[in-house]
């Protein structure tokens, strides 16, 4: 706990919108079994803030009444939770078995090369985050790429540039 407080004072403290904290507080106060619902609460927190930085984890630990270390233990255990901010467009390349057999590795490599980042990273302009995900249940369309909620099926290496361009353009 002591260590966590120190971190709060250091420079990596991020200012997050007050309304977000209020929204989360309202949600948590409505949960009956708070400790047993920690994962649900963290899902909600990530939905509100977009990610789970230390500040949000500390807030949850106080609201639920459990040590921050326990919250961190859960956040770090589950891959669904992210502690880093993500880009505006989340590019998720499916690396489930069906997509892998359909050469999804090459698609992932092509996105990484085109964006100049590795998987798990975000471009400097905060536009794109590149991730690999497991089967999204659309194996018939393998290889599958999600950009946000949009599905791109049967993606070929040649399509990669176009897909990125499409979302870049949409932002202009």
């Amino acid at each position: 706990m002591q260590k966590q407080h120190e971190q709060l004072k250091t420079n990596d403290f991020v200012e997050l919108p007050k309304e977000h904290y209020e929204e989360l507080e309202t949600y948590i106060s409505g949960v009956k079994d708070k400790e047993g619902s920690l994962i649900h609460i963290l899902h909600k927190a990530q939905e509100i803030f977009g990610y789970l930085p230390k500040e949000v984890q500390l807030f949850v630990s106080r609201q639920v009444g459990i040590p921050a270390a326990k919250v961190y233990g859960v956040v770090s255990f589950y891959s669904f939770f992210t502690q880093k901010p993500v880009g505006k467009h989340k590019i998720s390349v499916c690396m489930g078995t069906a997509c892998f057999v359909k050469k999804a590795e090459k698609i992932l490599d092509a996105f990484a090369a085109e964006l100049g980042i590795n998987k798990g990273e975000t471009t400097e302009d905060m536009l794109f985050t590149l991730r690999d995900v497991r089967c999204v249940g659309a194996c018939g369309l393998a290889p599958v790429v999600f950009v946000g909620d949009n599905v791109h099926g049967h993606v070929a290496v040649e399509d990669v540039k176009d897909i990125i361009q499409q979302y870049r353009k949409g932002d202009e």
Partner: protein
Amino acid sequence: MENVKSQENKQYRIALRNSGLIDPGDISDYIAFRGYEALGKVLTEMEPAEVAKMVKESGLRGRGGGGFPTGLKWEFTLKAPGDEKYLICNADEGDPGAFMDRSILEGDPHSLLEAMVIGGYATGANNGVIYIRAEYPLAIKRLQVAIDQAREMGFLGKDIFGSGFDFDLYLKLGAGAFVCGEETSLIQSVEGKRGEPTKKPPFPSESGYMGKPTTVNNVETFAAVPPIILNGPEWFQGIGTETSKGTKVFALAGDINNVGLVEVTMGTTLREIIFDIGGGIPGGAKFKAVQTGGPSGGVITELDLDTPIDYESLKNIGSMMGSGGMIVMDDSTCMVNIAKFFLEFTQDESCGKCTSCRVGTMRMYEILEKITNGEGTEQDLINLNDLARSVKDTALCGLGQTAPNPVLSTMNYYKHEYEDHVYNKKCTAGSCKALLSYSIDPEKCIGCTACLKVCPTNCIDGKAKEVHVIREDECIACNACFEACKFDAVIKP
């Protein structure tokens, strides 16, 4: 959902009986297809022990992978001392390449709810939990709607069918951890904790959720229960093989013409599934292997395609039934790379609780990486085999115990491919990047620039009407230039 339609006659629908037929958002559709009739029968005409016995006699075994007799599991929990008991549905569906459960959850949620109330009655539980992966938002939404409707109609809640039996259930979300599909780990996660497996015994049927007797069953297992109650155990007994009764749903994917879900009777051969129902391999390519059991399973070769599938036969040929992932691979798939793919998955998903699994899967992955990079040695092959055997024998939970299977089975059936990578530095399937180098034949290249335009890494140099050159160190072997060149000038390794 994408259910494979062709050759419907070879398929037999029990678990998927309503999927795609009824409106999952309307309970009256389900009721019209004899929905909640089995529950009525159970609650008004049968004792809990009779229900468990009936399911035992039917021969139903767990569809989540283990194949444990369901009725027997129910009897254990029913007989366990204490009056507070729980029933959990495992809807974590962690195999990365499978979506059987998702289809039932989205297409026929009431069949699961009905079966869970029956299961609660048969095991003495008044509370149920559906543990569902967060990656299935639509399934979560439909389940919630179904639960609300069932409550409203009195199929959930107090004094169901006026029988005096109370049962209610709620959803708990996963958060992306494969190990949480393992039942002891799942129970930890349902309690809101890190999902680390615990030692068995005690089994959940003695001490599970909150330390109380708990039954954990898979979605597809539950889906078979109402028809068994309605049609009787003899009906179910009559379908399938000596040791495995009923049907199994598979998610057919990979290099196959008809991708989607198929439900077949136990004892159907792999050849029938792949070639008759699945329509064979696309593009005239040659069948190479089929993988079942996901990250816990193994590959099956052409030689074993006529094996009638059941829990035992698949084990005998070095694979397993698993939860139903069935990935078909043509000869462009490298078997060493496939083993590496699964090991990357398991080492990433290992919870780290026991050293043998944490370090062992990592070491195996590193060796496979070395081999696919063309740096493998004879000693690596020996070490890989030794490691695989030792992790299998010493890991605490099913994840670690089965993680070596993809390595052991590919090493067994495709030893020559490993040797080719190690001794000849060759990947005959043409998929290991480091062993491939793309180049352009200066004699054939006319300088049309087509390849340069498609190259995702911009590693092709050249001007119009001049010979183009590939900078090999930046090439990711994506094959795009090869496909783009109309003059056969790109040389594929």
